[in-house]
């Protein structure tokens, strides 16, 4: 193992240790409402980081990401409900099921490009929801209820850290370069002898896996899940987070998803108008800052840029 990799593993372990220290020593004394918002932010982060890889780095416009969350949530929920396995086993099984559905959906639909891909993924999202609504053993439209409430700050952010590191590493790897090449020019990439369909499906499956994890956590968050939670408007919300954060950035979408998940709660005192304000912010942001919060850069690069500008300013 190289020195860099060792530092990476140590940082990840330290991060998870800090998360659990907070879970044990701080969460019991924190306002449950605040903790709840933070946990929901964490679940959004997991769904968004997968989509950032698919949409932001591979350039595949998927409008069905919430469908994969539904697969993860219902697999995890049903498994725990019927076989009483540990919720973590359920969550991992749900993620694998979501990844498997990702292959099934991805193989045929990734032949299409652009808006057509968006529409087909939207369609698959709709079909998944209708199938769940008609499955009595999954609770149908009434929802799957009576699940254990297992999701807490510690578990959510353990998954967030592992997912974040995993996706960051994929992006920095040779495979990540292939993803970006597909996004920037698919035909040129193919002419270099790279199997672009394979690359797209890989990104898609990876994104679906983390959406599945997010879904599993959602299932054990309130102990009940409903098909309507995973409809296409949720997929659209996830796309919005990625675009607002900046396509081609990982930290940008993560910041955007934190803000957009917390914002409706902050605006709750003016509950009646909050969705209108939310919509106006969205339109204003797109007109005034079309490349998103961070553009194609990462937060570290932006902060480093500020630092350099500050030093130049001092020197002058």
């Amino acid at each position, binding site marked *: 193992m190289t020195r860099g990799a060792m530092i990476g593993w140590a940082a990840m372990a330290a991060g998870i240790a800090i998360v659990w220290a907070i879970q044990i020593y701080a969460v019991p004394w924190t306002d449950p409402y605040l903790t709840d918002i933070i946990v929901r932010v964490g679940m959004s982060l997991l769904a968004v980081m997968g989509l950032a890889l698919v949409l932001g780095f591979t350039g595949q*416009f998927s409008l069905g990401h919430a469908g994969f969350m539904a697969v993860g949530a219902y697999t995890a929920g049903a498994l725990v409900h019927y076989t009483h396995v540990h919720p973590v086993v359920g969550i991992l099984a749900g993620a694998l099921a979501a990844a498997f559905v990702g292959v099934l959906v991805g193989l045929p639909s990734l032949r299409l490009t652009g808006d057509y891909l968006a*529409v087909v993924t*939207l369609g*698959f999202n709709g079909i998944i929801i209708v199938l769940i609504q008609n499955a009595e053993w999954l609770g149908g439209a009434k929802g799957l209820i009576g699940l254990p409430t297992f999701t807490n700050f510690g578990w959510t952010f353990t998954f967030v850290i592992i997912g974040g590191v995993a996706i960051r590493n994929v992006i920095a790897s040779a495979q990540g370069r292939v993803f970006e090449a597909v996004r920037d020019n698919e035909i040129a990439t193919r002419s270099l002898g790279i199997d672009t369909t394979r690359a797209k499906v890989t990104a898609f499956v990876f994104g679906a896996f983390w959406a599945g994890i997010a879904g599993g956590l959602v299932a054990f968050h309130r102990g009940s899940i409903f098909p309507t939670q995973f409809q296409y408007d949720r997929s659209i919300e996830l796309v919005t987070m990625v675009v607002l954060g900046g396509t081609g950035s990982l930290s940008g979408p993560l910041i955007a998803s934190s803000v957009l998940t917390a914002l409706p709660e902050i605006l709750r005192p003016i509950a009646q108008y909050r969705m*209108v304000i939310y919509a106006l912010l969205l*339109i204003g942001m*797109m*007109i005034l800052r*079309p490349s998103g919060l961070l553009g194609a850069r990462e937060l570290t690069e932006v902060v480093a840029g500020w630092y350099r500008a500050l030093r130049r300013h001092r020197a002058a």
Partner: protein
Amino acid sequence: MTVFLQQLINGLSLGAIYALIALGYTMVYGTLQLINFAHSEVFMMGAFASLYLARWSGADQDPTLVSVCFVIVGTMAFCAILGMAIERLAYRPLRKSGRLNLLITAIGVSMLLRNGTLIAAGPLASFPTLLPQTQWQLAEGLSLRSMDVITLSVTLVLMVALHHIVERTQMGRAMRAVSHSRDAAALMGIPVDRVIAFTFALGSCLAGAAAFLRAVDMHKIDPEMGTNMGLKAFVAAVVGGIGSIPGAVVGAILLGLSETFVSGYLTSTYRDAIAFCLLIVILLVRPAGLLGKHAPEKV
């Protein structure tokens, strides 16, 4: 046989409404390559505009031919202005930026209109019976509703008018030129911005007519009514080949018929999945839709 004919009538009537909405999606897509998510909200607000126009003109108390025509025309005009306003305020500032941005803006506009209507008009309103609602018993188990007749005839008239505008007028020729190539059209001296605004007006106008017909038929309207109809109409436009005007009509009729036939003969619980299954099958077999032209990418 009677079941078949009955479903045929229902399917055509539903398909006609889908077609009126789908045309707006397909025309805007043709000129801007934008999935105009706000179009479903134009449809929804058209229904509310109908309601207020009917109350204001007294058509809800005493529906005469003149006042009902006033409501229809007023609704279509309102939708046309709304469509143009959306284009001018939200989409035109983004003409030079990426398509993803335009799409997110469209989603934002859709949220804004839906929630704005919810605040302004409340969650549910009942709609007055503005058109005669009779039913003719043609045979055992086969009836023809006056609403179906009116829906189909209004749609037919509007289609003929649209065909005339697109194929025979100068503006229509400009629309076709812009949808063929925006840059080339601009170089030929076509005022592209005005053509795009006109396209929005035309599409929204048709959505207004659809909103009126749907509202009279359903007897109640709500701010969420656009979401589902809009999604299905959009699917119809893609099935027919987005960007193609006859394609949108064909796709919409096909979708209307498949929905009513499947729920009539098989099961109604999977009704909402039919649209998506049709969509996926068509796109995998013919990626450009039924009547869409497949443009090979040049390198």
